[in-house]
């Protein structure tokens, strides 16, 4: 698009509408040269709007919704030669400045394709999965505004959403699957491509190859929704309770804006937060509960082991004695082992003392089979892959691996389970890492602690309750 478009053909216009409609972009995110861009403004194909508005008591960034005073600052701008505001909140996505508008599409909306049988996945859903997916399809058909799927860890959420995607595409509508974490986008993208072979799918996350969003089926991080406005007929928000979605107000703000006026928003979660639980209880949020894992076995119920000298052990970067007592008594010593610790420092420093003992106990044969990961670890993706390939037997991790990752056969130890980073949702999620495959549907989950916390008790009670609702004896 480097020449001025003299007259725009209907096909070109359709392509342009696919590029720009549903988006809210900065000038530098619009791949048009200046004359073409000006012409688009004149033709009102692109509509400028204020990027930062003044409200009664605050300013608001029109891209991320930020109204927090400390997240605005003034810049003596060399572009307009005035000193004005910019938004510090969403600056990682490119700076929003008061002197530069945001642009939205002013032309006709695109005509999305109508697919007859888009789904090429040939698996079958379990009864629990089927029920949830039928309800999702119903919600889309009847134009329900919101719908929540509460499915236990390991229920097989991804497969459950395939019929909802199919329904949307059959109606010739547009759908986005949004998840708080880029890791999950990368993992789901090939699975979606395979399940919908003839449908163009695009994956958007910070650093993704594709920046354009021209596909009818999009999988994106929730952050990427900051660049959308009234784009989707169906938005499925995965892990609605996960960080940072629940902690960062701009993410729900942009998810809400990304959907069209008449649209269906579907939330997926294994551990709904209080606000959603309340709405479920009040019956203001329709939902389906999927209490059974896809393999039909109950969730592993965590056991607790008290460690009286835990603080001292941790100060010296040692695992507690109770851990070493448990280690040789594991039910199935062939399982890999995930050890959750509360801090990055512990994850890094515990490795050495653990390595020698694991070798002595013959859990690992060399130090290379033990590793640690945390959020600041640059090799984190690689390590997770190696663990999945069983090149690594034991992994010490922070809460970074609490969700979204599936390893077929692991035991899980949570060291200092009473630490405040392990809230109820985190503990339930972590416990949900065990027993994920049909070949080894049970796994051990041990909370090592020096005093039971409410979060631990509630997590255990909630797991038991979910099992009970799934028809299992507890």
């Amino acid at each position, binding site marked *: 698009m480097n020449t001025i478009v003299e007259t725009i053909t209907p096909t070109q216009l359709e392509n342009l509408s696919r590029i720009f409609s549903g988006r809210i972009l900065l000038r530098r995110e619009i791949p048009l040269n200046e004359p073409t861009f000006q012409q688009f403004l004149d033709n009102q194909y692109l509509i400028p709007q204020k990027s930062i508005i003044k409200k009664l008591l605050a300013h608001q960034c029109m891209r991320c919704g930020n109204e*927090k005073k*400390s*997240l605005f*600052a*003034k*810049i*003596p*701008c*060399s*572009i307009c030669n005035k000193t004005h505001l*910019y938004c*510090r909140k969403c*600056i*990682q996505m490119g*700076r929003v*400045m008061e002197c530069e508008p945001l642009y939205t599409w002013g032309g006709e909306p695109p005509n999305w394709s109508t697919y007859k049988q888009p789904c090429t996945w040939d698996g079958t859903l379990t009864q629990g999965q089927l029920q949830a997916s039928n309800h999702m399809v119903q919600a889309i058909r009847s134009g329900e505004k919101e719908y929540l799927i509460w499915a236990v860890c390991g229920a097989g959420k991804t497969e459950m959403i395939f019929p909802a995607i199919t329904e949307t595409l059959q109606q010739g509508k547009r759908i986005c699957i949004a998840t708080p974490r880029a890791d999950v986008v990368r993992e789901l993208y090939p699975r979606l491509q395979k399940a919908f072979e003839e449908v163009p799918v695009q994956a958007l996350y910070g650093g993704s190859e594709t920046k354009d969003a021209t596909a009818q089926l999009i999988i994106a991080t929730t952050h990427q929704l900051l660049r959308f406005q009234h784009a989707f007929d169906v938005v499925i928000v995965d892990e609605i309770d996960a960080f940072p979605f629940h902690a960062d107000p701009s993410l729900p703000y942009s998810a809400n804006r990304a959907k069209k006026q008449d649209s269906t928003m579907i939330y997926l979660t294994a551990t709904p937060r209080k606000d959603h639980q309340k709405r479920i209880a009040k019956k203001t949020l329709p939902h389906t509960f999927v209490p059974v894992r896809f393999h039909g076995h109950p969730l592993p119920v965590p056991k607790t082991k008290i460690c009286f000298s835990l603080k001292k052990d941790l100060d010296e970067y040692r695992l507690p004695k109770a851990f070493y007592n448990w280690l040789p008594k594991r039910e199935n010593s062939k399982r890999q082992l995930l050890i959750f610790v509360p801090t990055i420092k512990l994850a890094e420093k515990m490795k050495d003392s653990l390595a020698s003992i694991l070798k002595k106990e013959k859990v690992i044969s060399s130090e290379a089979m033990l590793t640690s990961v945390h959020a600041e670890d640059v090799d984190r993706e690689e390590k997770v892959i190696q663990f999945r390939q069983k090149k690594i037997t034991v992994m010490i991790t922070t809460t970074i691996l609490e969700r979204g990752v599936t390893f077929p056969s692991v035991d899980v130890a949570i060291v200092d389970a009473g630490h405040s980073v392990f809230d109820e949702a985190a503990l339930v999620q972590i416990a949900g890492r065990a027993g994920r495959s049909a070949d080894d549907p049970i796994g051990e989950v041990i909370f090592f602690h020096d005093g039971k916390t409410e979060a631990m008790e509630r997590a255990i009670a909630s797991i038991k309750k979910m099992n009970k609702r799934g028809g299992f004896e507890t």
Partner: protein
Amino acid sequence: MNCAWCDTEIILSLSWANLIMLEKEEILCSECKLGLEWINGNRCDRCSRNTTEKRCADCMWWEEKEKNESLQFNYSIFTYNPFMKEVIAKWKYRGDYYLGYIFENYLMEAFKENFSFLKKNGFVVPIPLSEERLLERGFNQAKMIADFLKIETKEILTRLHGEKQSKKSRMERIISKNPFFITESINKPVLLVDDIYTTGTTLRHAARLLKKHGCPNVYALTLVRG
């Protein structure tokens, strides 16, 4: 007041000292402040790098290469540790102008301690950005640094547009052509300011040009020794 980096609220402890002295308030919380790493101990008397030598090998090389070393000396305050890399990237490349204020007090102090002698008859000259880069970023981080210092700023250098220094290899930087132009001659000593001293090439390019146009001595103050 919220921390400029992590945005958690900073609870100010009120003491007689800060009441009477009216100290400039910190904009970094105590935890984030731990991320800053001052250069301390022995440093190269030319470039501020941490070394046990009086002058580091790189600076010896520069002296050999340039018969007259163009730069009297550079003073840097911080090391380029991972935290600093993140802060600089967000400040300069993402364009979070406000983050520059984190360094205001430290720069003022460093100036007072090392360059007070320039106050009477010297100028500070910020390393410029090219016109294109300036329009892209909206501000020049070196100009922001210069404005913190209690000495007159003269923007007498301009810069040709080229590839970013940070995208070049070490050798590419050192052999690169002088990208600067001078708009006015100065016959007084100059303090160049920039955010980072990496190979010292940029500062020496600017220094050489200033000296060629009559400047007697050129010094440099940089936030970080990369």
